[in-house]
């Protein structure tokens, strides 16, 4: 696939958010793999200190240092970085003010603790600042070091506030270096070079949160990306069966015959009893399928590109990540 025919050409910062439990980190990792495919270089960053990326890739905890974590299909590298706000602050002080010693002294008396955990907004500016620095970074020949940066961002409920850094620090720092830094970050985050993607499940609460999140991003004039519907189960049963089962009206007769033919039952009575037990499973599946269809319709309201990722039978292991990356590429998201 050419690098020029995906839905997000021109986007260099992919921010991935989602309600807890939707598989946000897994999808961010798979997206990074997909974007790196074909010889590109992608950085995957983590901002909440949970070491979720290390768990997904089954590696030891990540340090505050960009290091190669996986090789993409057809050659391509995924680097990973766990951003530690305090380290980012020290780096920032050193880089912009040349104050290495001051940084150490500030740490000692608790300024760092204060700035990164107590002072509202500052922490967010630091981690988004470090991320956007990686997006903008160029090598000696003037080329961008990373073709794309993928951020495993905070959950949907906090995403707008997290990205809306200028607003967050506006009340605090109307002028001065913090304000200047926030403006720089805003320049990247609010530009067409950024897309904020949502990970959802076909369940009421995650879908509602996704729609609310999209609305609040739009209100803040931040760029909305696509919706990744995760853990999608295949629809195995024929429509007529689903309809009947959803109405609690499934006739297990045909199933009993089939079970007998398959050699799974010991006589007619046994076949009937297994078929009746399975009927309960079918009814549940039918109700669940109807709910999923309704939720898919509801997600349509957002009018953004949607991608569907299959439920991984063995859970999200390393092989599963590559499977998801393939699904992402096949649907044109990367």
């Amino acid at each position: 696939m050419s690098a020029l025919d995906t839905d997000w050409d021109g986007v260099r910062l992919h921010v991935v958010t989602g309600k807890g439990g939707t598989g946000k980190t897994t999808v961010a990792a798979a997206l990074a793999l997909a974007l790196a495919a074909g010889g590109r270089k992608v950085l995957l960053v983590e901002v909440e200190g949970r070491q979720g990326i290390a768990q997904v890739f089954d590696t030891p905890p990540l340090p505050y240092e960009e290091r190669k974590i996986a090789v993409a299909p057809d050659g391509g590298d995924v680097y990973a970085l766990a951003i530690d706000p305090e380290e980012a602050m020290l780096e920032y002080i050193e880089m912009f003010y040349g104050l290495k010693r001051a940084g150490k002294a500030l740490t000692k008396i608790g300024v760092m603790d204060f700035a990164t955990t107590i002072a509202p907004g500052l922490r967010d500016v630091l981690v988004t600042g470090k991320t956007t620095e990686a997006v903008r970074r160029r090598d000696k020949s003037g080329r961008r070091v990373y073709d794309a940066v993928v951020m495993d961002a905070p959950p949907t409920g906090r995403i707008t506030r997290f990205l809306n850094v200028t607003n967050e620090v506006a009340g605090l720092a109307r002028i001065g270096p913090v304000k200047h830094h926030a403006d720089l970050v805003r320049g990247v985050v609010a530009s067409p070079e950024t897309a904020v993607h949502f990970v959802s499940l076909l369940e009421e609460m995650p879908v509602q949160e996704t729609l609310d999140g999209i609305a609040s991003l739009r209100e803040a004039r931040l760029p909305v990306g696509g919706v990744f519907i995760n853990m999608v189960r295949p629809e195995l049963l024929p429509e007529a069966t689903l309809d009947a089962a959803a109405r609690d009206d499934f006739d297990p007769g045909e199933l009993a015959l089939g079970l007998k033919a398959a050699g799974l039952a010991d006589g007619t009575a046994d076949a009937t009893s297994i078929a009746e037990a399975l009927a309960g499973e079918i009814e549940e599946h039918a109700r669940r399928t109807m709910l999923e269809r309704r939720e898919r319709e509801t997600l349509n309201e957002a009018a953004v590109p949607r991608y569907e990722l299959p439920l991984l039978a063995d859970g999200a292991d390393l092989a599963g990540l590559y499977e998801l990356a393939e699904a992402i590429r096949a649907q044109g998201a990367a």
Partner: protein
Amino acid sequence: MTSRRSQRTSPALDMDAVLDDPGIRIIVCCGSGGVGKTTTAAALGVRAAERGRRVVVLTVDPARRLAQSMGLTELDNTPRPVVGVDGPGELHAMMLDMKRTFDEIIEAHADPVRARQILENPFYQSLSSSFSGTQEYMAMEKLGQLRRAGEWDLIIVDTPPSRSALDFLDAPERLGRFLDGRLIRILMAPAKAGGRSAFKLLNAGFGFVAGAMTKILGAQFLKDIQMFVGALDAVFGGFRQRAEQTYKLLQAPGTAFVVVAAPERDAMREASYFVERLAEEGMPLAGLVINRVHTSPAPALSAARSAAAAEDLESRGGHELTAAVLRLHAGRMQLAAREHREQEHFATAHPTVPIAQVLAMPEDVHDLNGLRRIGELLTA
């Protein structure tokens, strides 16, 4: 006797015994995001009330659906009665409004002039509405208030979906450390020196640091913080003390922690971490609730046999429906087996922690009946 080696069985969590114990006054539901913590808290509230207790559920989750399931159009910072609860007890529900709670503390502890100074300070406004630890602190503060009010004999609280799972335990300590720390003394200095620049009064080391801070943060930012801290100092004499009281309350035998999880790797790993942390902190753990567990009504038909039979039917042709149903069943059995493995991992590491399972329901909870149903599953 022989099964002990092959399969570990955790003790069953008897949730009704916890709900019925008059000595239990606080139940804290904790767990990672998206595992159904808030729904569990609400379901426990309904069940406890219907078994005769005067219950208030304090939630931090702004989900409208949950309010609606309790027949309330919306939840706010005041406990509202839930109508339709059967039996002798009572149920109230409320949602934490952290800014409102913070404002109320200020208003209750400062004279009107000083209170206004604080409430209007831009640093305060940011701190009270967006600092990620404020929610945890205010949840604990509210819990303490509800407990002191003495109007309820059972308070059920769910915890904020924090960055790290136990922020609600750490945040008060962190805030206290900050307010008592050296930094505060530096920031406070101007107020104490009658408005003159305090930095001059400090020794050279501090002067150097202060200079760096001014350079990095900007003078205005620093001034706002100084004003805020100065005003706050008078108000928050008992800040840390109250945080410590609430912390002790959580350690007391009248509290029961319920760790909530889903039978997935990440959620179970978080649950393990919770259980360990709670033990370290000396917090009383009632047990683990595992939500959304899948089982099958036809457990004797294994995933492998089911899949093989489906393949066989498909290759022979005919019986398409049966083949599809067998595929469905194989997937279901596979999922159940994976969930079971996750539980076994947990049980191996924490063999004494009681466990209750809640079977997955095909649809979401919409009303009191749904919450009641969860309560039944939880205690089945």
